[in-house]
Each structure stands twice: as structure tokens, then as C-alpha cells.
């Protein structure tokens, strides 16, 4: 659907480059803005200040440091699996970003089972973490990997159920159409805001964000890493380049999940169409939205990942069994109720 007709290889190249940028750029910004700066400010300090103006080049310095370090593998480790694990985790991030729409025509792929694909692919990282934990030949890693597996499976479910509400309301599983729906709909005939599902699906949004926090193993749910208990969980034995990949994957996934949350609940790349008099039915959305869309998306993503990080820096962590109890006894029943309610309202109106 691009305006210029490119050969297949050029399109593929563009997509690969775009995907890399879409994964690495948010990761870098999140690390600098939130991990380096916001956390420091919340702790009465300034954070890195030496590398570049206000420490903005610090990340490059850190990457340089990690790349110089030796790529170690423990003696007893299952070497091939051990080396592969971080890549598996990172691959899941790349696969996730493929389905996120950034504008009316600016997307990597657009297919009808987008939501389904997204939920399926996000579990691949679990596999990578389990591989890392088991192959490290380290007791802490093993415990961390097992915890991670249990936790990610437990929180996959509320996430699916939370998204289900959105799918019922939108009537489609295509992420692009979910965005269009949100921006062209109206709430009880008033279309000043469109219908971002955060308003009608607030419970779903809250559950989704909690589940994301757990999927990302960010602080109230960071037992797989739990540096005071398990040293560094499944990452204990990793160093240098492979640790860097884990690190990038952690923050890139935070960014991608924020993107998905903004697509599902905040109206994605769009602004309410009624502001500009666009008509969704004829698809008459201006071409410049393809440029403005990514910027709008990134803004929404920054807000959401800011909240994720803010919670991370403020809270202590749960215990493993409390976390499971919270998932199965609170989140899942509530999200089931939410689905029922949505379905009833959907039929009623």
C-alpha cells in the first residue's frame, strides 16, 4: 500500500531497518530517560552527568563497556542453549513489534489475527528465560528461571482476558482496525474524544498494565531477577555481550508492550478523527498521518512506560506465592467479569 512501488527486497530491507529502529530507539530512550534520569531524580541525585551533555551519551559508553567484556560461559553449562537464550528473548521483542501499526500505511505487517499473534509471540521470551535459567548450571539461575516460567504463564492469562474485552468491543482482532475504531467511534453519540477504550475498558486497561508489569518482570513482580535473593536470577552467569542483549530486550519489551497498550487502549497512532473531519468508512485519512502517527505513538508509549518505570522504582517486590495468588484469585476473576460485562453491554447497545 506504499505510495512508491518498491521491489520486494527493498521493502524487506526497509522493514528490517524500521523494526530495528522501532525496537532499539524506544529501548535507548527508556533507559536514558527513565532508568538513568527519572530514577536518579526520584532518589535525590542527578544520575550520569559526565558522558555527553547531561550524560546523554552514557548508554553508548555502557554498551561499549559491555562489548569489551569477555563472553563467559560456566564450565557445567549447556553451552549451545546458554548462548542461544538471550537471542531467543530478543527475537520475541522483534516479532512483537512487527504487528504494531504506526500509521494508516506505516506498519510492518497487517493481518486479521494481529491480537492473537501478538499474544502468542510474547510468550516466546518465557522460553528464552527458561533456557537461560536451566542451562546456566547455577542454582540461583535455576530458581530464577523456574520462577520466571511460573510467573509469565500465570500472567499471560489475565493479559489475554483483558485484551478479549477490547476485541469484543471492537469486533475485530486486527490491530489496525482497532485503532481506526477507537478514533472514529463515539461515546453515546458524542464523538469529541472518539472512543479510546481506556474509558470504556478501564478495568481491562488496569489488568493489562499489571500483567505487562509482570511479563516484563519489573519491580513488584521481579522475583525472577530478585537481586537480593537470587543474585541476578536467570541472568546471574551472563556477562558482556549476552548480558547486554538481555538488558536491551528487557527495556525494548517494555517499550513494545507500551506501544501495544497504547494501540489497544489509547487510540494508537490516531487522534480522534472528528477533529479533522476524517471519515473512517471511506478511509480518507490524510497521508501526513503516516509521519505524525509514529510521533503520536512514541509519545503515548513514553507516558505508559514512564508509569511502568515509576511503579518499578517505588515498590518492593511480591513473594512468589503471593504473586501467583494475586494472578489466579484476583486478576483472572476480575477480568472474566469484565468480559461478561462487556459482552452484555455489547449486546444491549
Amino acid at each position: 500500500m506504499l505510495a512508491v512501488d518498491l521491489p520486494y527486497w527493498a521493502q524487506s530491507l526497509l522493514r528490517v531497518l524500521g523494526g530495528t529502529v522501532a525496537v532499539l530507539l524506544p529501548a535507548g530512550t527508556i533507559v536514558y530517560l527513565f532508568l538513568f534520569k527519572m530514577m536518579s531524580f526520584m532518589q535525590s541525585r542527578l544520575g550520569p552527568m559526565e558522558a555527553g551533555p547531561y550524560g546523554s551519551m552514557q548508554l553508548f559508553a555502557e554498551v561499549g563497556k559491555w562489548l569489551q567484556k569477555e563472553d563467559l560461559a560456566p564450565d557445567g553449562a549447556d553451552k549451545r542453549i546458554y548462548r542461544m537464550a538471550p537471542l531467543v528473548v530478543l527475537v520475541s521483542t522483534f516479532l512483537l513489534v512487527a504487528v504494531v501499526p504506526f500509521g494508516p500505511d506505516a506498519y510492518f505487517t497487517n493481518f486479521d489475527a494481529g491480537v492473537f499473534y501478538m499474544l502468542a509471540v510474547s510468550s516466546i521470551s518465557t522460553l528464552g528465560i527458561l533456557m537461560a535459567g536451566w542451562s546456566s548450571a547455577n542454582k540461583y539461575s535455576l530458581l530464577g528461571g523456574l520462577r520466571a516460567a511460573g510467573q509469565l504463564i500465570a500472567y499471560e492469562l489475565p493479559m489475554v482476558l483483558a485484551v478479549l474485552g477490547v476485541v469484543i468491543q471492537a469486533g475485530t482482532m486486527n490491530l489496525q482496525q482497532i485503532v481506526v475504531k477507537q478514533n472514529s467511534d463515539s461515546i453515546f453519540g458524542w464523538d469529541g474524544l472518539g472512543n479510546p477504550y481506556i474509558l470504556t475498558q478501564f478495568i481491562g486497561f488496569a489488568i493489562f498494565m499489571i500483567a505487562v508489569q509482570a511479563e516484563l518482570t519489573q519491580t513488584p513482580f521481579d522475583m525472577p531477577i530478585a537481586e537480593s535473593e537470587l543474585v541476578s536470577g536467570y541472568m546471574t552467569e551472563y556477562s558482556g555481550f549476552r548480558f547486554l542483549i538481555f538488558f536491551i530486550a528487557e527495556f525494548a519489551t517494555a517499550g513494545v508492550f507500551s506501544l501495544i497498550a497504547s494501540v489497544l487502549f489509547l487510540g494508537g497512532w490516531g487522534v480522534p478523527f472528528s477533529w479533522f473531519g476524517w471519515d473512517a468508512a471511506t478511509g480518507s485519512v490524510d497521508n501526513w498521518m503516516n509521519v505524525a502517527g509514529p510521533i503520536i505513538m512514541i509519545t503515548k508509549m513514553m507516558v505508559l512506560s514512564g508509569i511502568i518505570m515509576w511503579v518499578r522504582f517505588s515498590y518492593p517486590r511480591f513473594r512468589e506465592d503471593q504473586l501467583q495468588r494475586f494472578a489466579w484469585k484476583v486478576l483472572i476473576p476480575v477480568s472474566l467479569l469484565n468480559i461478561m460485562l462487556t459482552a452484555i453491554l455489547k449486546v444491549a447497545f
Partner: protein
Amino acid sequence: MTDLADRQKLSYIAAQAADARLNVELETEGMTLNIGPQHPATHGTLRIIVRLDGEQVVWAEPSAGYMHRGYEKLTEVRTFPQVTALVNRIDWLGSFANEVPFILAAEKLMEIEAPPRAQWIRTILFELSRIANVGLFLGDLGVQLGAVTPVFMAFRDREHVLNLIEGATGGRFHPNFDRIGGLKDDLPAGWIAETKQVMKKLRNFCTEMEDLLFGNEIFQSRLRGIGVIPAEVAKQYGLSGANLRASGVDWDLRRDQSLPLAYDKVDWKVWTHPDGDSFARCWIRLQETRESTLIVDQLLDTMPSGPIMAKVPRIIKVPEGEAWVSTENPLGEMGYYVVSKGDLGPFRVKIRSASFNNISIVPWVLRGVYVPDVISILASLYFILGDIDR
């Protein structure tokens, strides 16, 4: 309380059952996990050997001594003034508090008493080192439970206290300020006004900790009902300090014995908590930090004037005899049994440090808990490695 004690008993029985079950039912083996000697949760080099069934602890034992420095032996070849420089390093976070009982024991042998102003300043510095010590504990607690921010806040406000200690004594960590018969020097001008401001900041810090950590539902669910130590067990294992008071035993050496310190001149409260769980231990420490700031404020207002040094000979020889003095240090009861043969230095010194006895309860209290609770219980028992290994 009985409810919590029952729960502890039940988990103990469960652990025993799990231990028996391990090899029988599933033909599985328990996993032995070394927490330490190099582990983020042990604040140094304490090693705790735990046997796990899944994530449940079946058996645990602390193994101390990785940092043993032989202080009791070293004191035998040091003169009395040199020993204070040494014992500073036992509990390195509240170092001034280590000097006081030793000096008091030596003074007891020499039958002299420091002048009132020196007693006042001693008590103030004693409480300041308690604040520096326990304040850091409050932040460190957050780290053990996975919250990163509280520890930076603790370091931020502890810095003010350390500046005060440095301003008065010259040493941030190791003041070496206490002398037999008094103090090395009087306070510098402007110190009292500064201290009052810092005490206000610290009360503010305590409120912040209450909001950020103690009021947090996750924090409470992590600590409430975990690691319950009933009062009888606590007494049997010789716990002291906040760990004992959290089990509901109203016992505080600052109030319960009369030493030449100014505690009986001020109005303050000994906090106790009936529960005996990890939360109670942390909560007691928070309240005590706030209480300490109030004690310091009152002492500053009522400070008498006068000399800070009693008449002592220039070369100190302590007469023959034996003396035992213990005080309520930040970590618990710390005492010195000093034997002197009339020489320049002590003949033998027995050091009773609080942490060594406090961690002796670890095998009892860790049975049947989960690995994350191991960390929170260790954090709430609050030990300092130098204080265990001496």
C-alpha cells in the same frame, strides 16, 4: 500473637514433614543452597547454608567467621586509649556506640565518673550513631525487598548525621572520641543549632519511610506474620535490642540500668510490639529512630555547662579488677567484660556483641519459610558482619 506463633509451629511441622517426604515419596533430593559468603543479602560475608525442598527451607544454619579479626586477642596487646580506636570497627555503622561501654567499664574499674557535660555529649553522640545505623537499616530493608529508592533516601539523610559526627569528632565513621574520664574535645560552635535542623530532617525521613515503605501493602504482605519469634524463644536465644522488643518484651538497657549516661534525664518511650514478626521488628526500629531524634532534641536543650574531662593521669593505668558494662547499642545489647592486671592495657576483654546472638536464632526461625522470606527475615533481624565476627 498466639495465632502467629501457631502458624510458625505449623510451618515447622510442615518443614519436618517435607524433610521426611523428600527421599521417600518422589525419590527427590533436597537442594543445598549457599546463601553467601558472597551474596547481596548478607551485607558482607555471612554464609547461610539452607537445604531447600522446592523453594521451602527445610534446614538452615549460619556459618560465621569469614571476617573474624580477633579483636578480643588484639585488645590484649593494646593500651586502653588504643583499644577505643580498635573497637570502633566492630559495628561499623554505629561506631561511637561501641566505644561507650568499653570506656564505661574502664571508668568503673578506675572508679571515676565523667563530668555531666561529657555524659550529655556522650549520650547525644550515642543516639546519633543509633540514628545513622538504624536509618540505614530502614533503607536497606527496601533493597532486600526489591525497592530501590528507599536506600538512597536513607543514605541521603544519614549523610547529615555523619556530617554532624564528623563536625564534632573529626571522624565520619570511626570517631575515636570517647576517652577514659570524659571526651577528647568539646563541641564546636554552631553544632547544636545544626543538629536540631538535622533532627527535623530525620523525622521527615521517618515519615517518608512510613509512606513509601511501611504503608505499602506489598511491603506489609511480605513481612506480616513472617518469621514470628515468640517472646520465650527470643529470650532463650538471647536476642536483644529491637528484635526482643518486637516480641513484646519490654526490655531496654538505656532505661533499665543506671549508667553515667543522660537517659534518665529525658522523657522518652520504649517501643514494643506484640506480634514478634518481621514487620514488628522493622516497625520498632522506625519508631526508635524517631524516638532517638526526640531524645537528642531534649538533651540539646538541657545540656549543662562545665568541663568535659574528669581528672585522670596522663598515662592511664587501670587498677586491678574485673568489670562488666553493657549498653543498648543500635543492634542490641553490647557489653565488655574487662579484666585488668594494673597494666597500660587490659589483660583480657570479652566482647558481647549483639548481632552474634541475634543471628543464633536463624536456624530456628528459618525452618519452613520460603526463599524470599529468608531474605526478609535476615533483613529484619538486622545484623552487621563486623558485629558478628568481631
